[in-house]
C-alpha cells in the first residue's frame, strides 16, 4: 500500500501523474481504509463463530440489561431508573450512577434500524457494537496519524495496526459489550480533533473536540485521561515558549464547552469543578488567560521593566492560585483523589486502604510478557516512533511524546490501561515504519551527493521549529537516500516478513486468548476435541425457571451482573461496587459460622445462596480462591468478628484439608463448597483439584441452608435458605431431632432454676 501512496513514485502510467494521480490515490486510500475496517471487524468475530452470539463476561451483562431497559422504557425512564433488583434491599439509583453513552448509542442504532424497517434484535446490536466501532477507531487513528506525520503511508499503517492490535481487540471482540467498546474510538477521535484545533487554531475544531469529549465523558470513566492529557499538552507548550493564539483559542474553547458538556452527565455532575482529577484542566485554563494577557500587554508596550514586572506578577498569581487550590483540597471543598485514581500514583495505596479495588484482577500491574503479547513488534517500534517525533518537534508531536510517556506509565501500573496505551503505540510505530518504507521504497536512485540539498534541508529543518534551534544528532547530515537496490529489497523484504508475522501473531492471540466468553468455558478433551463447559448458564437458567421472580440470590459480587442479566433475579451485591459495607456484609455472611450468617441472611431476605466451586474440575477462578478477599473486605468493617489471621494455619498456610483451621472449616463458604463433595469419591479419597489437597474424610454438615441445585461439573452450587423452624427451635436442634437423638432430660439441669414469668 505504501508504494501506491508514494507521492514521487515514478512508475509509468497516466494514473500516477498530476491531477488524476491525486484522484487515484484518494480512491485507493478509501478502498484500503474500507478493507482495513472490514479486517478489523472480521478479526473480532471469532467468538461469535466459535460459540454463539452471546454477551461476554461480567460488566457487559449489566450494560446489556440496561440497554434493554432503555429500549423498552424510553430515555427518560432510563434516566430516572431506580433499579430495585440489585443491591437488595438498598436498590441502586442506576440512572444517576452509570455512563449512559454506550446504552444510548446502541439504543439509537436500534431505533434507527427500525426507522428504516430493519427490526434487529437488540442483543445482536449489543454483541456487534464493539467490532463495528473498532472499524471507526481504525479510521480515526488514520486521521490522527495523518495529522501527526507528513508521510502519506503512516496513517494507513496506523489504521491497520489499530485495527488488529490485540491490545485493543482484548476489550472489543464481538460480545464484550463494555464502555471501552466505543470509548477508545472516542478517545482517538477526540485527540484527532484536538490536534486539528491546535493546528488550525479554529473555534470550530475546538468545539468539535469539546463535543466528542462530552460524548467520551458520557461513555467511559477513563475520560479523566483526556481531561488531564490535553491540559498537560497545553502546559508543556507554554513552558516551551510556544504559546500562540491558536493554542489559546483551541484550549479555551475546548475547556469551556467540554466542561459544560461533561457536567450534563448525571453521574459526573459537579465533579469537573469539585474534584482534584479535574483541577489541572481548570488551572491550565487560568494560566492560559494570564499568559495570553501578558502576551497581549507585551505586544502593546515594549518597556523592558514593565515586562519584568508583568512576568513576576504572573508568577505570583500562578503560585497564589496553586496555593489556594491546595488549601481548598485540604479543607475538603475540593474532593481529593478518588481511590481508584489515587491508586495509580501511590501504587501501594489500594492494597492497604481499599481491598475491594486491589481485589479486581484487571487492577494488577503489568508484566512485560503482557506488553509483548498485546503489541508484539509494535512495542519496539514504539520508542523509535517517539524518537522520530523529536525530529521536527511540532506542537502535535509534543502531544504524542507526552501521551506516550504517560500512557506507558499507566499501562505499567494497571493491566486494563493497556487499552489507552495501544493507540499511541500504533501511531508511533506507524510513524517509524512509514519512515523506513518511505526511505527504502524509493524507486529512483539518488544522484551522487552534492552540498546544495543538504543546506536546504538543514535550514528547512531550522525553520520548522522557531523555539529550539538545534536538531537531533541523528539528523545532522544531509538527506541523500538509498543507493543500492539490494539494500532496498532486503529491508523491504524483512519489513514485509515482520508485518506478516505481526498479522499472524495478532490472529493467533485473538483466536486463542481473547475470544472466549468467560460465561462459557471451553476445554480440550484428551483426544484434543473441544469440550464446552456451560455450567454457569445451566445454573442461571435453573434459577430463572425454578425460583420465584423476586427470590433474592446472595453470591459474591463477581456474579451479581450475570445473575441479574441471565437469571433475572435480585442480587445483594454486584460488580458495581459502590457500597463497600454491603459487600462486607456478604463477605461476613460467607466467612462466618452458620449461626452468625443465618440472621444476616434472614435480615436481607436471602432466599438462595450461590457459590462457585472449581474443586471437581480444577477451575481455579472459584470462590474458595477468592475467599481471602471476602475475609479481608469483611475484616475492614468488622475487625473484631472476622479476622484474616484465623483462616490461616499456625504456619500461615491457606489450606482446605485436615489441617484447615476451625474458622475455615466452620465458615459458610467452606461448608457450601465442599458439602457432599466427599460422596463423589471412595471414602477418604475426596480430592480438590484446584488446591490439590485431600479433603477431610468427614464432609461438612449444613443446618441452616439446604442444597437446591448443583450444576453438571459442580462449578455452580445453589443453596436454599431454610425458613425458621416451625416449633421455634434452632436449626441445629431441629436437625438433631430429625436424626432421632433426643434432648437431654431437663431434670438434670445445672445451676439455679430459671423461673418463668408471664
Amino acid at each position, binding site marked *: 500500500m505504501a508504494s501506491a501512496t508514494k507521492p514521487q513514485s515514478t512508475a509509468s502510467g497516466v494514473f500516477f501523474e498530476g491531477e488524476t494521480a491525486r484522484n487515484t490515490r484518494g480512491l485507493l486510500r478509501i478502498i484500503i481504509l474500507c478493507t482495513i475496517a472490514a479486517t478489523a471487524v472480521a478479526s473480532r468475530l471469532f467468538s461469535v463463530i466459535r460459540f454463539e452470539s452471546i454477551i461476554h463476561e461480567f460488566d457487559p451483562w449489566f450494560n446489556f440489561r440496561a440497554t434493554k431497559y432503555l429500549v423498552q422504557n424510553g430515555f*427518560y425512564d432510563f*434516566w*430516572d431508573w*431506580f433499579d*430495585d433488583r440489585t443491591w*437488595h*434491599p*438498598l*436498590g441502586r*439509583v442506576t440512572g*444517576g450512577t452509570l455512563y449512559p453513552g454506550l446504552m444510548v448509542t446502541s439504543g439509537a442504532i436500534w431505533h434507527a434500524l427500525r426507522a428504516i424497517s430493519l427490526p434487529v434484535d437488540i442483543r445482536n446490536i449489543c454483541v456487534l457494537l464493539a467490532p463495528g466501532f473498532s472499524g471507526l477507531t481504525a479510521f480515526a487513528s488514520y486521521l490522527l496519524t495523518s495529522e501527526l506525520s507528513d508521510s502519506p503511508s503512516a496513517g494507513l499503517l496506523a489504521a491497520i495496526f489499530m485495527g488488529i492490535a490485540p491490545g485493543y481487540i482484548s476489550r472489543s471482540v464481538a460480545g464484550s459489550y463494555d464502555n471501552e467498546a466505543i470509548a477508545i474510538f472516542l478517545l482517538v477521535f477526540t485527540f484527532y480533533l484536538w490536534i486539528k484545533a491546535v493546528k488550525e487554531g479554529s473555534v470550530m475544531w475546538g468545539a468539535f473536540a469539546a463535543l466528542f469529549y462530552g460524548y467520551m465523558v458520557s461513555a467511559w470513566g477513563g475520560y479523566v485521561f483526556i481531561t488531564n492529557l490535553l491540559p498537560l499538552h497545553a502546559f508543556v507548550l507554554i513552558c516551551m515558549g510556544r504559546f500562540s493564539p491558536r493554542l489559546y483559542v483551541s484550549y479555551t474553547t475546548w475547556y469551556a464547552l467540554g466542561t459544560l458538556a461533561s457536567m450534563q452527565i*448525571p453521574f459526573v455532575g459537579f465533579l469537573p469543578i469539585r474534584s482534584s482529577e479535574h483541577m489541572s484542566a481548570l488551572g491550565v485554563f487560568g494560566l492560559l488567560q494570564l499568559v495570553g494577557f501578558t502576551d497581549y500587554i507585551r505586544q502593546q508596550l515594549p518597556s523592558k521593566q514593565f515586562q519584568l514586572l508583568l512576568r513576576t506578577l504572573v508568577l505570583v498569581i500562578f503560585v497564589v492560585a496553586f496555593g489556594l487550590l491546595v488549601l481548598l483540597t485540604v479543607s475538603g471543598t475540593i474532593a481529593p483523589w478518588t481511590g481508584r485514581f489515587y491508586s495509580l500514583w501511590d501504587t501501594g495505596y489500594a492494597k492497604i486502604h481499599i481491598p475491594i479495588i486491589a481485589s479486581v484482577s484487571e487492577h494488577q500491574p503489568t508484566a512485560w510478557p503482557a506488553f509483548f503479547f498485546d503489541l508484539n513488534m509494535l512495542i519496539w517500534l514504539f520508542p523509535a516512533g517517539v524518537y522520530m517525533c523529536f525530529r521536527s518537534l511540532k506542537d502535535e508531536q509534543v502531544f504524542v511524546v507526552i501521551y506516550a510517556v504517560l500512557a506507558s506509565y499507566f499501562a505499567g501500573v494497571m493491566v486494563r490501561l493497556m487499552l489507552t496505551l495501544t493507540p499511541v503505540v500504533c501511531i508511533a510505530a506507524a510513524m517509524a515504519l512509514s519512515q523506513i518504507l518511505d526511505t527504502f521504497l524509493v524507486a529512483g536512485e539518488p544522484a551522487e551527493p552534492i552540498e546544495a540539498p543538504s543546506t536546504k534541508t538543514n535550514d528547512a529543518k531550522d525553520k520548522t521549529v522557531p523555539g529550539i534551534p538545534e536538531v537531533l544528532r541523528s539528523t545532522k547530515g544531509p538527506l541523500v537516500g538509498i543507493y543500492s537496490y539490494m539494500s532496498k529489497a532486503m529491508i523491504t523484504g524483512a519489513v514485509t516478513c515482520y508485518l506478516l508475522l505481526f498479522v499472524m501473531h495478532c490472529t493467533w492471540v485473538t483466536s486463542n486468548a481473547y475470544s472466549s466468553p468467560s460465561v462459557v468455558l471451553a476445554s480440550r478433551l484428551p483426544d484434543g476435541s473441544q469440550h464446552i463447559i456451560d455450567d454457569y448458564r445451566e445454573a442461571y437458567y435453573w434459577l430463572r425457571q425454578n425460583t420465584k421472580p*423476586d427470590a433474592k440470590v446472595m453470591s459474591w459480587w463477581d456474579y451479581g451482573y450475570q445473575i441479574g442479566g441471565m437469571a433475572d433475579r435480585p442480587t445483594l451485591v454486584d460488580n458495581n461496587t459502590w457500597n463497600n459495607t454491603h459487600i462486607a456484609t456478604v463477605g461476613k455472611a460467607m466467612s462466618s459460622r452458620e449461626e452468625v450468617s443465618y440472621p444476616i441472611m434472614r*435480615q*436481607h431476605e436471602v432466599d438462595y445462596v450461590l457459590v462457585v466451586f472449581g474443586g471437581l474440575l480444577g477451575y481455579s477462578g472459584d470462590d474458595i480462591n477468592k475467599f481471602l478477599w471476602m475475609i479481608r473486605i469483611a475484616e475492614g468493617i468488622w475487625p473484631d468478628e472476622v479476622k484474616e489471621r484465623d483462616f490461616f494455619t499456625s504456619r500461615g498456610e491457606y489450606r482446605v484439608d485436615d489441617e484447615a483451621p476451625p474458622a475455615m472449616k466452620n465458615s459458610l463458604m467452606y461448608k457450601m463448597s465442599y458439602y457432599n463433595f466427599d460422596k463423589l469419591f471412595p471414602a477418604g479419597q475426596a480430592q480438590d483439584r484446584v488446591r490439590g489437597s485431600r479433603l477431610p474424610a468427614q464432609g461438612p454438615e449444613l443446618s441452616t441452608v439446604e442444597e437446591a441445585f448443583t450444576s453438571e461439573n459442580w462449578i455452580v452450587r445453589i443453596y436454599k435458605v431454610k425458613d*425458621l*423452624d*416451625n*416449633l*421455634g*427451635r434452632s436449626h441445629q*436442634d431441629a436437625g438433631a*431431632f*430429625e436424626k*432421632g437423638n*433426643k*434432648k437431654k*432430660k*431437663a*431434670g*438434670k439441669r445445672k445451676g439455679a432454676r*430459671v*423461673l*418463668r414469668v*408471664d
Partner: protein
Amino acid sequence: MRFTLLGLLLGFLGIVSALSATGSSLLVIIEEEADKSKYSQFWADLQGRGYEITYRSPKDTNLSLFLHGEPAYSHLLLLPPKSKGLGPNLTPNLLVDFINGGSNILLALSAEQAVPTAINSLLLELDINLPSDRTSLVVDHLAYDLTSSAEKHDVLLIPSAEPKKGVVDFFSVDGLVAFPRAVGQVLGNASPMLSSIVKAGASAYIYNPKEETEGVEDPFATGSQINIVSAFQARNSARFTVLGSSEALQDTWFDAKVRLPGTDYKAGKTSNKEFAQRLSEWAFKEIGVLRVEQVQHSLDEDTKDINPKIYRVKNDVRYSIEISEWDVDQWIPFNPPTGDAVQLEFSMLSPFHRLSLNSSPSTTNKDATAFSTTFRTPDQHGIFNFYVEYRRPFFTAIEDKQTVTVRHFAHDEFPRSYEISAAWPWISGIWVTIGGWLAFVAIWLYSKPTRDNKPASAKK
C-alpha cells in the same frame, strides 16, 4: 396465616357444618374400648359440635396420622395409654410432622399411668418439661377436694385465673375446676410460643407418691411455676394443648360435688364441663383464629390506584389491613384485647416506622375490622416492606408482608430553578453574560475596520 386459610378450605370441603376453622375430623387415641364410656359426656359434646370422631388404639397397626403425605385428621386427642409406649405410629417425629402439617393436638396426661418416653421427648422439643420421675403428681394442701381426696390431697380445685391485661381470656369459667392426679408441667423461658392456661395454686408442689420418704427435698417445681394446662402454638398456628389431668374430662368429674378445705361454704358442682368445652374449642381452633381479609396501601392524595408497586421518598402513604376472627361458627370483626394494638412496621433491614394501627369497622366487609394509618415514607430509597406481625397468646399468628419499592426523586420532580428565590442572582448572571457576549460580538462585527484590498492584491 397461610396454613390457617389452607386448613379452612380443607375444612369447608370436608363438612360444611364443621365448627372448627380447620376441619372436623378428630382422631382419638384411646387404648381400651372400656375407657371410652368414661368420657361419654365429652364425646357427646364434641359430636354435638359437629366433629366426626375416629377412635383408635395406639396398638392398632393400620393406624396412620397421614394420608398421601398430608395429615389425615385435622385434630388429634391423645389420651394416656396404659402401656409404656405409644407404638411405632405415634413417634415424636411423626407427631411433629403432624403439627407441621397444620393439625392440632390435645394431649391429656395422667399421673395414674407413667408418661411414655415418646411424649416426654416430644414435649422437650416444645420446651415443656415434665417431672423426671414419670409418676409424680401435683398436690396442694390448701386447695384440694375434701370429698374425694381428703388425705391424699391430689385433686386440685382451681378457680379461673384473673384475666391479664392485653391477653385475651378464653378459658375463664365461674366456679372451681377439678384436676385430679394432675401431671404438672414446667414451661421453659426460651420459646415465646408457649403460654399457660391453668396454673397450680401458690401452695402446690410436685411430689412422687412412689418414694416413701417423709417430706420432699427439692421438689421438681412448686407454686405457680407448675402448669396444669398449657398451650403451644407453632409458627404455622397449629395448636398443641397439654392437659395435665385426663380425668378432668371424665363424666365423674363433670358432675361431681367438690369442697375446698377450710372454707365455710358447702360443696358445689365442678365447672369441668364448661372448662372442657372451652378447652376443646380452643384446642380445635373453634375460637381465636384470625384471618387477614384485605390489605390496601396507596398514596394519601389519590386513593384510586390500590397497592402500587413503587413509591417515592417523602410520599404520604395510607395503609389499612382488615382482620376478622373466627368465633365458633362465623367470622366476626376482630378487636384486639384492651391494652393491645395491631402494629405496622415500614422496614428496610430495620424498621423506619413502627406505628400502632387505629381500628375502625370495615366499610366493605361487615365481619372484619379495618386497621389503618397514614405516614410519610422516609427520605431513604430502597426496597421496603409494609410488615404486620401479630403474634399473641391464644390467637393464631398474623404475618403479612407487602414489599414495595421507594424510589428517589426523578429529575423533573425537583422545583424549577426560577421557583427558588436564592437562585435568581445566578440565573440573572447567566442571562447578563449571554446578553453581554452577544452585544460584544455585535459591536465587534460592527466596528470591523474596512480594509481596502489593493495592497493585498498588489502583494500577489
